């Protein structure tokens, strides 16, 4: 009952959050990504390639197998972004709702729409802000450490941050002191960075443009993620209230 309820509602919540994210993303974040990709074709600055995975001679930090399938720029790329955003929404909301249902059913958390928004802010902090302090969001063309090392650190940072926030808000009093340690742990270990500067374009004008795009991207992706997580939090809280009360009334009927 709980499993089915979470999965079904996670799909609905994911659809909503993914749709909202796509709208915000296409308006503010995607143009920055496209602009950064234009600088990846270093020897042909006047030409913006139709297919973003075709290489010029000097590829800056964005390496792909040239034979691999990729969506065409334009509508196809937007639709695949919508699909991916929805799937991300489904995934995040399933995890979020699993935690919410347990805390709610145990009487530890009382959920309403406002509390849902606070959960959303928590998700934004744990999944974007805190990991972003170690590994800032990247635009295409950024030099970075090996992908596996960054993924491992990102996973550690998000799990530690999420656990720290949960312990802080819902843990027994003595356990709250663990929260700062959990938050600090990934930063004590240190986020992996490349030895090179973030951008190394030979043209100084392009280099300045990339650095400026990077700064814009921090704000644009920050705003998009905040909206995404607020929608996730509020919608998930609404859904979990229904799941928990439905489950409780089923349990009552079974005992009657």
């Amino acid at each position: 009952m709980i499993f089915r309820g979470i999965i079904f509602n996670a799909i609905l919540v994911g659809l909503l959050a993914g749709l909202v994210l796509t709208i915000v993303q296409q308006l503010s974040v995607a143009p920055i990504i496209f602009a950064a990709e234009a600088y990846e074709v270093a020897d042909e600055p006047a030409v913006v390639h139709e297919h973003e995975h075709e290489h010029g001679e000097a590829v800056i930090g964005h390496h792909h197998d040239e034979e691999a399938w990729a969506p065409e720029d334009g509508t196809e790329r937007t639709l695949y972004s919508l699909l991916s955003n929805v799937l991300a929404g489904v995934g995040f909301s399933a995890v979020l709702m699993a935690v919410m249902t347990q805390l709610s059913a145990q009487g530890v958390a009382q959920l309403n729409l406002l509390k849902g928004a606070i959960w959303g802010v928590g998700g934004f902090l744990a999944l974007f802000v805190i990991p972003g302090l170690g590994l800032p969001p990247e635009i295409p063309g950024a030099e970075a450490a090996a992908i596996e090392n960054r993924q491992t650190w990102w996973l550690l940072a998000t799990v530690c941050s999420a656990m720290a926030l949960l312990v802080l808000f819902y843990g027994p009093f003595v356990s709250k002191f663990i929260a700062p340690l959990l938050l600090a742990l990934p930063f004590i270990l240190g986020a992996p960075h490349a030895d090179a500067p973030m951008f190394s374009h030979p043209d100084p004008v392009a280099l300045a443009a990339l650095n400026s795009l990077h700064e814009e991207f921090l704000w644009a992706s920050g705003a998009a993620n905040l909206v995404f997580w607020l929608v996730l939090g509020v919608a998930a809280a609404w859904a979990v209230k229904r799941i928990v009360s439905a489950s409780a009334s089923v349990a009552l009927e079974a005992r009657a």
Partner: protein
Amino acid sequence: MSSHVVEQQSAASVKSSSLAQAFGAAIFGILVLFAVGFAPMDAAHNAAHDTRHSLAFPCH
């Protein structure tokens, strides 16, 4: 008295079943997130490219 014991036992098993179901839902969510954010295949990366950048999943 025996019905009270039975009630307590069934309440406990409902609780552990609900925990297991929530855990299963969380695993489902994590698998979906892995596919979107971490799957190494080029096609998966290219399809989810803008999502990965936008949500600050490490990319490339």
